[in-house]
Every structure is written in structure tokens, then in C-alpha cells.
């Protein structure tokens, strides 16, 4: 069986690369940790991969703003490669800092110009927070097929409040069904803080591009791929696998199907 190749892209300050690679491996992929310098210097060719993952962390210290310096680097140094990668129908996922990078580089919500239309800004609480969040899911994206209506993942960020440029942009996201994850309570109902941990507009926790192949989310699916990562696993010893694993499996299955021969 072919194991699709995943490029887990890291740079100074990336710190969720290993567990992201672990999640992809568990989902049946072959994941490489690739430093951005290797792509910029063309030592490694992005097109050998069928999935590109931007893991969490604090790229370049999140100096200036979260994900900003890395997003700028991508646009200036790898813009062409990325456009081609997207055009080839390949998959991208950005988690936490990775989502911030996707949004700030304009890869999400996605347009040819790589222009920023939405942002992730400082939490309403004014501080970094780690907590578990329930997420209402939509299935209309490659990454979220067959997910249950509500899943449970941890968040850990200081700048995760989703805002859009204007109402029109937000309406477009809704109309195109690009809003994939929304913070909610255990019953799937929308609620205020702390269920919505950062004050995101419309409780938005994750969005995809129009093709459904590029996904970005603030919560960490890679931190819930094992049963024992659930905060209450000692109580319910029977849970099967972590809620996040299916997301990686979906990506891997899609890549197998579409790029299996590559």
C-alpha cells in the first residue's frame, strides 16, 4: 500500500511538528519534517509531496503578529511553488500557528493573489489559554468527511480570535460553506466564553478554501489522536481513538486516491 508523503513544514519556533508527523504516520502517511530553508534553497522539492502541513508553534516568535513573518516569507520566497501545489489539487492543513500562517499569507480563505482577507487576532481574554473545546463540524471539506457532529479538541493559543475584513467576506465564507469548525458546548449549542475561548466572530474555529482541500483550524487535532489524550479517559476507559485522528485519515485517504500512483 502506498503511503502518501506529507511535508510537515517547520521553521524557527515551530513546535508541534513531531506530534503532527506522528498523527499523519498513524493515519497511514509517510511524514517528513522539512525546514523551510530546504524548500527556499530548493534542496527539497515541495512537489514530491501530496500533503503540506503547517504545524503549531510560534514561528519566528510570533513577532510582529502570530504567523506573520512566516506568512511573509512564504509569499515572498515560495509563492510560485505554493500556487502550483494548490493548482495541482494537493492538500494543505494548518493547525494553530499553521492556521495563522495560512490566513496571513492569504492561502485561506484562498485566492490567487495570496491576499489576506481574514485574520486571527489576540484573544478577548488578552492572554494565551490552553483548554479543551467542543467543535461543531461541517463535512463539506476533504479533511472533515464522516466526522461526528461535535468533536472535542484542545486549543492553546493567544491569538485565535477569527475576524474577517468585512461582512461581505464573512457572508461569502458562509455561502461557500467554508466555515468548517465552530466552537460550541458539549451539546453542540453555541455559547460564550470559555466555550468560545477567544471571542471568534461567529464562533469560527476553522475554515477551508473553496475547493475544500486547504483547511486551517486553531484547535489541535494532532493532540487528540490517542485515547489517552482525552482529558477524561481515566473515567471512560472504553473510548476508542482520539477525535482528531479522523481528520488526518481523511487527508491521507484523499491523497491515496488522487495521488496514489505518483
Amino acid at each position, binding site marked *: 500500500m502506498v503511503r502518501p508523503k506529507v511535508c510537515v513544514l*517547520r521553521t*524557527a*519556533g*515551530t*513546535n*508541534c511538528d*513531531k*506530534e503532527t508527523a*506522528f498523527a499523519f504516520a498513524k493515519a497511514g502517511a509517510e511524514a517528513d519534517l522539512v*525546514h523551510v*530553508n*530546504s524548500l527556499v534553497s530548493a534542496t527539497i522539492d515541495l512537489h514530491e509531496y501530496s500533503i503540506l502541513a503547517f504545524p*503549531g*508553534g*510560534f514561528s*519566528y*516568535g*510570533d*513577532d*510582529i*503578529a502570530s504567523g*506573520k*513573518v512566516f506568512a*511573509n*516569507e512564504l509569499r*515572498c*520566497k515560495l509563492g510560485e511553488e505554493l500556487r502550483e501545489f494548490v493548482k495541482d489539487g494537493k492538500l494543505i492543513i494548518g493547525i494553530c500557528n499553521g492556521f495563522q500562517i495560512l490566513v*496571513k499569507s492569504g492561502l485561506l480563505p484562498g485566492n490567487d493573489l495570496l491576499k*489576506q482577507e*481574514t*485574520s486571527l*487576532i*489576540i*484573544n*478577548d*481574554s*488578552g*492572554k*494565551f*489559554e*490552553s*483548554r*479543551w473545546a467542543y467543535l461543531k463540524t461541517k463535512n463539506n471539506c476533504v479533511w472533515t468527511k464522516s466526522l461526528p457532529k461535535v468533536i472535542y479538541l*484542545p486549543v*492553546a493559543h493567544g491569538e485565535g*480570535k477569527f*475576524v474577517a*475584513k468585512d461582512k461581505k467576506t464573512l457572508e461569502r465564507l458562509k455561502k461557500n460553506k467554508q466555515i468548517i469548525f465552530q466552537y460550541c458546548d458539549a451539546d453542540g449549542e453555541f455559547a460564550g466564553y470559555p466555550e468560545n475561548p477567544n471571542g471568534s466572530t461567529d464562533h469560527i474555529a476553522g475554515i477551508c478554501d473553496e475547493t475544500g482541500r486547504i483547511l486551517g483550524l486553531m484547535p*489541535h487535532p*494532532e*493532540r487528540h*489522536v*490517542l485515547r*489517552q*489524550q482525552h*482529558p*477524561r*479517559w*481515566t*473515567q471512560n476507559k472504553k473510548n476508542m481513538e482520539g477525535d482528531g485522528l479522523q481528520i488526518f485519515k481523511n487527508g491521507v485517504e484523499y491523497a491515496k486516491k488522487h495521488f496514489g500512483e505518483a
Partner: protein
Amino acid sequence: MSWKIEIRDLPGIFDAVGQGIKKDILDLGITGVRDVSFVQVYILEGSLSEEQVRKICEELLVDPIAQSYKIVLELRSVKVLGEHVVEVAYNPGVMDPVEESALKGIRDLGVSSVTAVKTAKKYLIKGRFTASQLKIISQKLLYNKLIQHVVPGVQSQALTTLETGYQLDLITIDLFGATTKKLMELSQRGQLFLNLDEMNCIKIYFKNLGRNPTDIELETVAQTWSEHCYHKTFRGRIDYKEVVGGKTSKKKIDNLLKSTIMKVTNELKKPWCVSVFHDNSGIIKFDDRYNICFKVETHNHPSALEPFGGANTGIGGVIRDPMGTGLGAKPILNTDVFCFGLPDYPFSKLPVGTLHPKRVMKGVVSGVRDYGNKMGIPTVNGAILFHNHFVGNPLVYCGTVGIMPKEKSFKQVETGDFIVVVGGRTGRDGIHGATFSSGELTHESEKVSSGAVQIGNPIQEKKVLDVLLQARDKNLYDAITDCGAGGLSSAVGEMGSELGARVDLDKIPLKYTGLSYMEIWISESQERMVLAVPPEKSDALIELFKAENVEATVIGEFTDTRKLELYYQRNLVCNIDMQFLHKGNPKIEKKAEYVQQHHREPKIPLAKDLTPFLQRLLSRYDICSKEWVIRQYDHEVQGGTILKPLTGIVNDGPSDASVVKPLLDSKKGVIVSNGINFRFGFIDPYWMAASCIDEALRQIIAVGGSLKEVAILDNFCWGNPDKPDRLGSLVRTAYGCYDIARGFGVPFISGKDSLYNEFTEHGKSIAIPGTILISAISVMDDVEKTVSMYAKESGDLVYVVGETSNELGGSHYFDLFGALGNNVPKVNTVLAKKIFSALSKATGKGLIRAMHDCSEGGIGVAAAEMAFSGGLGMELFLSEVPYKSKNSRNDFILFSESNSRFIVEVAKKDQKVFEKSLRGLPFGLAGCISKNKAFKVYGLDGKTCINADIDELKEFWQKPLRW
């Protein structure tokens, strides 16, 4: 020229920074502030066109969705009526953490003419308040003068640069002609913190060489011999006198460390202890392929002066310890334990030169959060305690555990190896840190020692770590150590102590020019590691680091001369014998005296209803929820935190310890816990040490661990050891450590002491309470056996395991009445070991559904925490609690802080097996979990003595530190 850019949030965007400051201003008791808005300022230096500046702003500096910017050209900003502007910038020489990334971003944009980027923060404050209130706001909240200043007159600022040249000017110090008085003057003025014996010893050494020392030689010796680096109190001679129970005994101690702490380890000879007490952290076996190592450090004095920077570099420093252990370990978790003054301490009583405890706490927490989170290391365990004697001198303990392939556990420097420094550049920061921490703080400290304060750059350290582990696995170096206190002087001195070392000081990469050869050598700039690299591998090593934008530079070599030779531009500036440096110091002898005080047991009227007391205990700062702190730490990065610091039906109860799985595909886990309780030390430091060890160990048991492979670390934070009473209590503590650790059969693998924790204000010295922290680490064979502390299901049985005695001395219950008491909790290691072992067997068999250890606030607090964390009620019958002493009372049973006790939840179906497993041990079936939300305790007379709603109790517990 320079361009000033101001960025602020667009209308409609919530200004979280401004609003946070507004709330903090209210906390100061200043009510007239109507609004605060925050403006981020960038200053770009270089020859730039306005078009380029706009490009930089629009594509890099400004978030187009949430912010707007303006380029500020006018010299003076226009004053808006009713709006006060405070602009805060870094002092010259203080690293601006954003500069490096901003410059990178600008270069990526294709603009190469920017030579420097500085940032400043501008606060626009509206409302009615006086000029002196504004000054208070600025000083207490907006800046710290040690690293920042308020930009005067709100004029557009030019960059202050430190770019000055340096011409070699070799300074020698005349010791030959120096009188006794002069020698001590030299020690004091040079901040060497050396005593007369030591100064004389140096004088004689150089007399024999026939020359006076250079300043760098004297400084190197002072650093190497400092309390911080050499631990001369613990390793010296102590003339100890003890008066306990009316009996006087005397003892001459030669090396306290070897006669107590290390003695336990030597006697126990545990086969799984891999490397103890000689590397940067202690190493134990993890599994057949890996070892783990653990180190806990303190960073108290820097945190007193600049809480954010102090704690930031504190955690940054201890992370480098595992990185510098053996051939380098990967950090897998952090711990932190703090002691502060009370957060509601009156501003009017603050000693001169001290920051308010709340500000200290917020700064310290932010500092740890910033560094730990950015390094991608989960902060999983800690404690926070409060006492007003920590007002001038907080305690900041930071610990890190690392994992390494077992064959990478040892290092060996070879003659001919290149000395390579990797990571951050060297600047003027942190000069005199090692010697500074070897003296007391005074209200002058903030003036004379400000060079000791630094800000860390976690991303620099993360970059170093990323490459270091690759270089390690490619076998590119022979040895490694970190640059901590004492900087290169300490690191190179230590690595070359057996062989000799030669360094060309001018080869060390600098942040800016103008540093003297001595400043280069003793600077404590952060994020640097020193490697011993075989010459033939140095190119490969340097290339590897370069590939990820980390500087690695050959600065010298290890020799066979047994000398430390330092050159600056080919001039020999230091030439001393390693033997003298590391072994030549005179053994100092100190006097220690411990006289046991008798404290009266208070007479406390027994209340019928103890509910209000339970509520008050839950609201004590030491006991209450630390969720506000814990949530700011990323405690789940790396994905291995399977018992989290907060646990419960809504994830907010207090875990006894955390369990981390360092290898995601292995069943094995690591448990870390800590024991700390300075209050018991007020009565008897011996039993403080005992209780701390018991606490750390029982927490491991409580989460499902065992004593099979547990190692502990000691961290002594004490007052001035030159004062016999301070040193006396320290010695007694060390003996407590020996006896109890030996009794439990648990070895120490590493430790640290931080002495001189005193704050002298106008001649009056305030010592911190002598405080020992015991950190424990254990390897768990199968994490599936993990037990969490919150109540699981109604109908389950509740047991109290272990003996409760009339031991309320130093308890929080007594403290509610302003009393200390004398019956301090003791430890019976024989019984405790049996209890611990029986409970681990029970958890191993899956008989225990929840378990919580009893510590501060005793059974009452522990049981209440279990109940409300599980969202379930509980009924407890005090008559069923095993109670040893005669005068049994409801409040004593509930709130005594006796050691080695647990509250255990067991399913009814397992009752028989569980009880059988505890046969012969003190335990009582004391109650059950109930479906309703009532927490009910029935007293010895069978009548209700506590009847409370669990949600209400939880609110009492959560409210105090919900900031």
C-alpha cells in the same frame, strides 16, 4: 534616517492589551481612568523611501484586517485634550526581542537597506487622574526602569546605538600592595563577593607567579568560586550546634552535601541511577533505549528585580540544563514552583525598591509562559505559595525533564577539540549574575546590579535545540555544556578543568561592538551552548547549524596545558592554572546553630458548623485554584500529557501530579510531582523536609505510580548562610532529607541551593522562610494505570487511608486563627512505605477509581476538591477516619495536615478486594459519593458538621485567583 510608525487597532476591534491595562489600573485603586488604548510603535533605521516604508508596513508590520498605521513625521505629537500619552521603549543595550524577526521579514520583502528595527509601546490613557497617579500607573504597570524607559516629551526618537569601538586596555589589579582593608574593598567594589581568606589566597597565588592578576583573571576566579557556581556553603566546613528538646549536640560537618543528600544516593546504589550530581542534571533509566534527566533551578534575585525577564531567563536557563546533559537531551516537560508575597499586600507598606507581589506574580507567570510555550515544552506541574516574607525576595523554581538515547548520556572532552559556541550572540547583558546571586538583595540592588537582568529569546534557544539534537545524532561533538551563570567563563572553565583551554576572545560573535575582553568573557547572554568538537567535524557541525540560521563559531581549543589561557587580539589576558581555579579555593568554615523553639498549641473553640472554615480554607491563596496560571501554560504540546494538571468533569480540578508519555508509541510514562511547605519549617525544618518528601512521593502514588523507580531533587532556598541561625535551620533540613529519603529508599539525583535570599532595607534584614522544594520524578511502566483525583460515580465508596493525628502545627487551619502551633506533621517512613506500596498494588489492579492526597487543609479540603471536581456530592463520617491522637475533635480530624494520607474512591463491587489489599494498615471506609450536589460531613457525634453545596465550595476555591 529613522522612520517612526504607529499601529493601532481599527475601530470595532477589541483592544485586549488596552483593556487589560485598564483592569490592572483599577487593581491599583485608581478609579478615574476611563479608557486605555494601545499603540504599537516601530522605528526603522536606514535609508528608505516612503514607498518602501509603506510597503514594509502594509505587507509586514500591519494586520490589514484589524489594524491601521501612520508614519509619524512631526517631532512632537499633537496633544489631545484629556489624553495622556506614555511611550515605553527599551533601554540601550537591552535586546529588543522583535528586532531579529522584523529584520528577517523586511529582507524577505526585498528591502535590504534597513539597518535596525526598534519597538516601543505607547499607551493613550483617558480620564481624570493626577500627574502623580499617572506616574504610579507608569511605574507599576507600564514599564520597568531596569530594562525600559519612558520616552521623554513624546518626541519622535532617534535610535540610541551602542556601536562604539573598543581598544584593548589591559587592566591589572594590584594585590601585592593591598592591605586587608584594600582587599575587601576590591572584593566589594568589583562585586566579587569574595571573603578575606579567598582574597588572600588569590594574592598568594599571584605572588608565587611573581605578578599581579589582570581584571579578567580575578573575575574568573570570583565567578568560579562564587556560591552560585561552587556551592561553598554546602561543600565547606560547618561547625554545627543543635539544641533540640533541651539537649545540646555539636557536630563538625565536612561537606554537608556529601554527608546528607549525596549520602542517600551512595548508600542506596540504585542500578537505574545513571549519572547523579556531576552533570547539568541527574539521569535515570527510562527504558531499554532511553534515559531521562531532571533538573530544577532557581532564579530568585533576577525575578525580584524584573519578574518577566527573571523568570523568562530562569526557565530558559533550566531548559538548557538537560540540553547540556550528557550529549544533550530533548526537553519533554517543565515544572515551576513560586513563592510570592500576598497578592493583596498593601501598596503603602511595600519596602523601597520592591515591586508589588501581584505585579511580580503576573510578570513571573508571563515570563514562564512566554519561554516555555515558545520552546514547545509542556509546563505540567507546579505550586504557588504565599507569605509576606517573600515580598522583597520571591522564589522562582523552574525545572525541566529531558529524554535522551541511553548511549548519549556521557561526555568526554578530548585534547585538541575545538571550543565552539553556538546560539545567541554575546552582549553586555547579565554581567555579574553569578556573583550577584551570591549576596543579599538591598534596596540598592536595582541600581548596582541592573546588568544582571536580562530578557530571553526563546526562539533562539528553540533553533539551537532543533539543530543540536541532529548534531548529537550525527556524533558531531564530544561534549556539551550550557552557558548559564558565569557565562563562557564558567562553561569553558568547567569543560576544560581536567585538560586546559585556550580561547580567542575576539572570535566570539558580539551583538554590538565596544565590549571589553572581560565583558565578553563573563557576559551571561542567554541562549548559548558550548561544544567540544573534533577539528575534522567542525565544518560539518557549523554547516548543520547554519542550515537553520544558527551561528556556530570556533573560539578556541581544549589543550593539555592544564591552564586557562585567554587571548584578545593575540594578547594574553589570562593565564591561570585550572588546578588553582577549580581546587585552589580555601575551604571556608561557617558556624551554624539550630535552637528548637517551642510554640504553644492554640486553644481554639470547636465550632459546631465547620462549613465556614472549609470555605475559608478553600479560598486561601495557597490552596485555591491556580487555573488562571495553569491555563496560560501550554501543558499539552508534544501530545504526551495524559494526566493533565487540571482534571475533572469540566477539566478544572487540581491533579496531584502529571503523567507524561514522552514516546507517543510506548506505554511508559513519566510522573513528576513536588513537595513544598515552608510553614512546617517555622516549627521544625527537619519535619518540613520530611513532609515535603512525603508529599512529593504520595502524589506519585496518588496518580497510580509506585516507589519502584522514584528519584528526587532538592532545592534549598535560604537566607544568608553567614548568619548561624539561617545556616542552622538549613543543616537541620538537610538531615531531615537524609533520614526520610533513606527511610523511603529514594535517592537524590540532583539539586541546587540558592542562598542569600534576604532583603536588606535600611540596615534591617528580612530573610525568606527557609524553603525546601522536593521535586520527584518516577518512571511508570504502564500509563494505563493512571488514576485521576476527581470523584467518578455516585454510589462509589470513599476511604480515608493513612493515619490522622493531632498535627495541626503549621496548618492552614491554625493560620486562620493567627496561630502556628507546635505539633508539626511527622513522617513514619515504615508505615508510609507500606501504605504507598499497598495503594500502588491496588492501582495496578485497577481497583481505584479516584485518589487524592491530603495536604494543605487536610481531609476536608482534599475530599471537597474530589467532590466538586467530579461534579458529585460526598458524604463523610469522621468517626470512621483512623485517628491516632487522644484529643479527637471534628476540626482536627478534618484539617490536620498529617502526612501519608489519601482519599480513595472505590467501586462497591471492589470493596472486598480493596480492603483485603490494605489489611493491617490504617484505613477507614468513611463515606460514599452521592448523586446530589451536597458535600456532607458527619462529626464524631454523628451530627452534621459540614453541609455545603459543591458548586458553592468550588466557587470559594476558584474565586481568589480568578484574575
